């Protein structure tokens, strides 16, 4: 549903630079640099990256708001440059800022965007009722948006993006400024979108959320994709083989020397030890068999959770520091 090929965006930038002789004063800032990825129907791709990495510019190109300087993108089968109008109809965009008209009521606001999307009055009425109910805004439909809390505004912006039932959703920080309950509602809605085979591109700084929702994660740094894979594979690639922990009912005394030919123990305590293996399917059964033979009473054997944050920080620290917003 989303396909990009060498997608590149350069902005003119006339800031004078010392020592630049031999060219006109105009220089170019490359915000997105040869980005290639695809997102299938029913898939959620999380786009992560530091401020200024090029996430928002990528989203704007996919929404046919900005024209790529090079490369191309297709959304829902439409070319983002040639078929801009169709792309804008096929995409639901949640922008970085809700950007609401605060003197309007929610109903009026949604009707306005519904009309621009070409929906009939009946379609608008039906979708407004369904979505406001789903996000808990049904009671506030006749309230002026200036009276909405930050979280309510964010939810209304999400409803605006979903109003015309688009097959592709580009969501920039969908749960920012939301309380835990509202954030849960939105996350559930995003998972529902996946179940409905919609394609979701999720830009977020919330790594837990990305790990929870995304099928794959792309990390952008200085306009380039520096990592793109499932969360599990990214962890394996960057943090090494899984770290496993065994907990025993008794003290560890005497057991470890008998395990050295099977695993390399990295850490241990009074009743537990941790080891790393790249082939858990063979190592773990053998280890359990050995411990059973030693009459050790095993309580648990589990993988030590490793956060996406570790992966992200590793990649981003390799990829460079924050730049100005792109």
């Amino acid at each position, binding site marked *: 549903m989303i396909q990009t090929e060498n997608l590149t965006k350069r902005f003119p930038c006339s800031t*004078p630079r010392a020592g630049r002789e031999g060219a006109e004063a105009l220089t170019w800032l490359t915000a997105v640099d040869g980005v290639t990825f695809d997102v299938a129907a029913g898939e959620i791709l999380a786009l992560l990256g530091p401020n200024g990495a090029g996430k928002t510019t990528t989203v*704007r190109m996919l929404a046919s708001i900005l024209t790529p300087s090079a490369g191309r993108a297709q959304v829902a089968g439409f070319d983002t440059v040639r078929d801009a109008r169709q792309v804008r109809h096929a995409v639901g965009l949640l922008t970085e800022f809700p950007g609401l008209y605060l003197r309007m009521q929610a109903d009026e606001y949604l009707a*306005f965007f519904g009309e*621009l999307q070409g929906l009939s009055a009946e379609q608008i009425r039906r979708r407004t009722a369904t979505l406001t109910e789903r996000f808990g805004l049904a009671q506030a439909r006749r309230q002026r948006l200036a009276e909405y809390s930050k979280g309510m505004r964010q939810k209304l912006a999400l409803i605006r993006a979903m109003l015309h039932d688009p097959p592709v959703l580009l969501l920039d920080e969908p749960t920012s400024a939301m309380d835990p309950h509202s954030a849960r509602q939105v996350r559930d809605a995003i998972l529902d979108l996946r179940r409905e*085979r919609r394609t979701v591109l999720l830009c977020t700084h919330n790594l837990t959320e990305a790990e929870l929702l995304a099928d794959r994660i792309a990390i952008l740094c200085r306009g380039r994709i520096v990592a793109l894979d499932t969360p599990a594979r990214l962890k394996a690639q960057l943090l090494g083989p899984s770290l496993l922990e065994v907990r025993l009912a008794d003290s560890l005394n005497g057991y470890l020397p008998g395990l050295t030919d099977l695993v390399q123990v990295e850490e241990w305590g009074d009743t537990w030890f941790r080891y790393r293996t790249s082939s858990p399917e063979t190592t773990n059964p053998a280890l359990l068999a050995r411990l059973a033979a030693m009459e050790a009473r095993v309580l648990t054997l589990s993988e030590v959770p490793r956060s996406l944050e570790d992966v992200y920080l590793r990649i981003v620290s390799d990829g460079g520091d924050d730049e100005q917003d792109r």
Partner: protein
Amino acid sequence: MSRTAEPPRPMAPGRQRSNFKVVGIIARRELRDTVRDWRIVSPILILTLLFPWLMNWTAQTAIEFVQRREATIIGERLIPFLLMIVGFFPISFSLVIALETFVGEKERHSIEPLLAMPITDLELYLGKMIAATALPLLGSLLGIGVYLGGLYLSIGWAPSWSLFIQILTLNILSALVMVSGAVVVSSQTTSVRAANLLASFIIVPMAILIQVESVVMFWGNYHALWSISVGLVVVMLILVRMGVKTFNREEILGREIDELNLARTGQLFRQFFVQPPGGRPGSRAGPQASPPLRLLHWLGRVYRHDLPFLLRRNWMPMAIVLLFAIVAAGIGWAYVARYPLPQGMLRLEELSDQEFEALSNVSFLPALRTESIFAHNVEVLLLAGLAAVVSLGVFAILLLMVPIVLVGFFAGQVAWLGYSPWTFLATFILPHGLFEIPAAVVATAFALRIGASVTAPREGLTVGEGLVAAIADFVKVFLFLVAPLLLVAAFIEANLTPQIVLWAYGG
């Protein structure tokens, strides 16, 4: 829905929308937003209902007063003037609304969801234009209605249809000029505050325009109002073109926005001035070379590359200026038939040194000395550059046309008096004109480019950057080409031209 199902499609549009419908949807929302803002509505209401009534009273009082002193003409002129004022005051709010509508959306980040809709830039532009113009225009019409109704009921005065249409046209055009100007201003800022500061570029010319209209109306020359209307149409078309060019998704979200930063502007000017245009290699003198040597290399590059490149790049404005120069000469020639000099008034064969020296006593002409002529010509052409900035290049061309009209006029007079115009041109004009005319054409063309840079900045540059680049080009060409040519021309005009004239006509 199962995982294997076809991906969903967006909800089908209810019916095919026309462009006008989209424009209407946008305009309706904007209007609704505006009428909910008491800060905008209450002054318009006051200007619509209270102010016309006050003007009504003023008109009646003034008429009674001047009738007692048998100066009825003042009253006759005052009533239409107040009609224009009553109509214009609500119109002035179109500027406030337009700035709020265009730049306010950017500032509040509400523009991006709109840009993500399946609408064109032009539909969005027109919708906002209509919204910004409609309410003040309605206020203006209501105000005019209240004023005229009151006058008709009190003293039985009603305007002629011609005057009524003139005032309406002027008001509508003023509103459109202000709104289209506001769009251009908005495209250069990201905050309403900055836009309000830049709005003086609209307010000041409009204030001057109102003063001109006032003079015209008190003078009673109502036909001149049509000329002003035509002028407003031209300005509006230029501003709309600029607005359409700058109000698009790429410019709104994908551009650096100009800031009023004098230090940066200075740096940018230096960069445009020092560096070669067209991305050619810089100075060949290495960084170790002494400053005078580097300067020499730089000057060499300016003459070898920069000036030929700039002249080639600006062939179009030069051609336009040349065309206007020819037209000006034709106009001058054509005026001979209307204002012929009496036969025998001009005797070229009697010209003498003393008469050339006497030219110094004509107040608007420089003394017949190299430095005076040079200074005069430099002043005029620099003024053309300055005037171009505020007049979109129009004044620059007018400044060039005036002396050429005179040349054409005198050449025509000479012919009318039985002399050969070719000899006249070859002796009076050609010797110094060989240098002065190309210098004037080049300088005016680059001044015209300054004006045009505001309406159509070079690709990739903001309006401000384009303006700085055009000024840098103008300064470079002026310093290294125009000024030397003017100096040579001034020397010839002061020292050789009179001798050639005297030699040719045997004085």
